[in-house]
């Protein structure tokens, strides 16, 4: 599983998290009582505000809802279960669900286990040009049956690290609006991708401003480093408060038979942090530290490859964003990296940028150079 590492190759508990945990530990008025089914109210409101923005029209118009969930996975699952029961008719398991090719491998299982029978892929990664296959993506959306559900990565696409540009998002939104396609955003890296919360939420907010009803599954695993506390949030944006209220009441029933009510510790940490201007600022700083280190590793790796004269182009390393990068290495080259150089990549050529450190950059760059020049 992918997690951030420091330049020493160690896990990193965010300083603001340590501080808030100590505050919680010292607060004798706190207890371990059940949270409400939909979660800690202060967490829910703040988490959705982070995704949609302080000045979100949807928030102002009181047409948003939130479900505290067990990580991003839990948020996806609650959303998927709800859609299967209530979207496009009642219990319409035949509604096509489109997942990018490639995507996080668990996306498929979430929607299958939620009961959907028709899971398809949409074109996304163009291996030849090592970038987004926008035309393929738009074609798939044009051809998709009306009301199909599309899983969109809000930023830092996993595993390719390749995101649409704002202009490309606009094109995507236009087609989706015209074809009545449902946007289900997966936002696991807000802040962690570019270092800016607002920049990383641009796509979600754009869709909201275009009047879409949508879901956004948020994870606080990476941007808060709270992996094992399972802190997530499903943000629901609807046409009006009444619709959202009814949606939440049904999501409550789904939550009740899945985990009854969510875990308290992680939500408290996030809520406390987001609600305090000072802690919020500290958090943004911590997030930027992580994002900056990854961005630095990208630029350092690219420049080394270019200095070595490694065949091929390497600008994709810095154009891609987030934790992962699709290097473009083929399976044989990947095998070489693993067997001969003991550098572990996925067969897809995906590398976890967090594994790079100032100490191993040279070695990794040289190894890639060898793999590409020796193996075709």
């Amino acid at each position: 599983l992918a997690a951030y590492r420091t330049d020493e190759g160690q896990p990193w508990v965010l300083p603001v998290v340590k501080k808030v945990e100590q505050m919680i530990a010292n607060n004798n008025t706190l207890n371990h009582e059940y949270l409400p089914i939909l979660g800690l109210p202060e967490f829910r409101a703040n988490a959705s505000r982070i995704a949609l923005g302080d000045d979100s029209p949807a928030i102002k118009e009181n047409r948003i809802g939130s479900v505290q969930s067990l990580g991003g996975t839990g948020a996806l699952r609650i959303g998927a279960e709800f859609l299967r029961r209530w979207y496009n008719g009642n219990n319409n398991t035949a509604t096509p669900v489109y997942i990018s090719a490639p995507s996080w491998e668990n996306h498929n299982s979430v929607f299958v286990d939620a009961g959907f029978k028709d899971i398809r892929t949409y074109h996304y990664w163009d291996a030849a040009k090592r970038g987004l296959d926008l035309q393929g993506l738009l074609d798939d959306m044009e051809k998709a049956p009306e009301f199909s559900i599309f899983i969109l990565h809000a930023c830092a696409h996993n595993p390719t690290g390749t995101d649409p540009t704002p202009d490309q998002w606009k094109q995507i939104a236009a087609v989706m609006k015209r074809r009545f396609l449902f946007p289900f955003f997966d936002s696991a890296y807000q802040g962690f991708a570019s270092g800016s919360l607002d920049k990383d939420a641009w796509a979600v907010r754009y869709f909201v401003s275009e009047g879409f009803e949508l879901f956004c599954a948020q994870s606080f695993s990476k941007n808060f480093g709270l992996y094992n506390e399972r802190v997530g949030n499903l943000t629901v944006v609807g046409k009006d408060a009444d619709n959202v209220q009814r949606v939440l009441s049904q999501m409550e029933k789904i939550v009740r038979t899945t985990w009854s009510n969510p875990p308290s510790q992680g939500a408290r940490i996030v809520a406390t942090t987001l609600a305090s201007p000072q802690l919020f600022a500290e958090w943004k700083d911590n997030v930027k530290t992580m994002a900056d280190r990854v961005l630095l590793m990208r630029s350092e790796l690219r420049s080394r490859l270019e200095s070595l004269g490694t065949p091929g182009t390497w600008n994709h390393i810095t154009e891609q964003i987030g934790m992962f990068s699709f290097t473009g290495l083929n399976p044989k080259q990947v095998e070489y990296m693993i067997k001969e150089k003991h550098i572990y990549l996925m067969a897809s050529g995906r590398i976890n940028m967090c594994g790079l450190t100032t100490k191993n950059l040279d070695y990794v760059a040289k190894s890639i150079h060898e793999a590409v020049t020796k193996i075709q």
Partner: protein
Amino acid sequence: SSWWSHVEMGPPDPILGVTEAFKRDTNSKKMNLGVGAYRDDNGKPYVLNCVRKAEAMIASKKMDKEYLPIGGLADFTRASAELALGENNEAFKSGRYVTVQGISGTGSLRIGANFLQRFFKASRDVYLPKPSWGNHTPIFRDAGMQLQAYRYYDPKTCSLDFSGAMDDISKIPEKSIILLHACAHNPTGVDPRQEQWKELAATVKKRNLLVYFDMAYQGFASGDINRDAWAVRYFIEQGINVLLSQSYAKNMGLYGERAGAFTVICSDAEEAKRVESQLKILIRPMYSNPPLNGARIASIILNTPDLRKEWLVEVKGMADRIISMRTQLVSNLKKEGSSHNWQHITDQIGMFCFTGLKPEQVERLIKEFSIYMTKDGRISVAGVTSGNVGYLAHAIHQVTK
């Protein structure tokens, strides 16, 4: 227009409704007997001392926040199995079991329900006692199973309808699934005696039923963790390979931390490994991996001898207070001059008590006395204190005389 115009408003949660009404009530004497959480003799939530100590240990260790494995914290799952089965249990010692961490009792039940839906092809039918915890039915239904029932509670005597239960169970089609409450039956508080458990085990074995135990109150029922797990252990000793769901919400007061476990007793360790791999495949698309905090607190308590001892004393303390409130309620009812037989209040065990009060009487308790409970006459004894037991007895007497 909206995608959601046709989405109906979900029905209000009946128990939540009780608490909502209670909150709105301005009567200073009001009592909330709907709450399914322990309260101390001042009516306050109780954080166990052993929990506070475990938390202090955790805070001082400055551990990282890396993902747990899908199956959860190993020290926790092993200790959970040992707590339920007993350290001398053959199934535990031989390793012919798998225990995965679950999201408290609900999450553990749901993992088991999904596992049965996917792998138990012999039957879709899950038999619940009449009545059972309200959430059992939707959990199994959402997992794709069908619900049936066997007689259990006798409203005439406010106790176990043992002959009715045996009659129904002996007719359950072979290879059906039967759910049993290990102790402190929710909502009635009515548990079989050990001789009755023995007969149930024999019948269940004869009918070749798959047994699923829900144990949410180990230690909390009688005050003795071994006594409360007796039925589970007896069934396993009789060669019945049970499924088991555990919760640490009540017995460790870890409600909101969601600490629980799901266990499958298998033929051998190799089968257990195969079952484990399939459980992980079920869990991953639900929430990937479980939350650490509650499991770590529970694990430290169970695995640290001093803290474990302290925990056993504290859980007995909670159970004893509940038992004492039952006793005081009955003696106060006598003092009020009630001529009814209230023995079931002290015969029943655990957090809940089926008083036998009728809906009209419950309504009067709410309206005239600001005493809140669910319409079925169930009270949470945890909400009774030495300060309000007299008032409760008085009120019950008024509506039943």
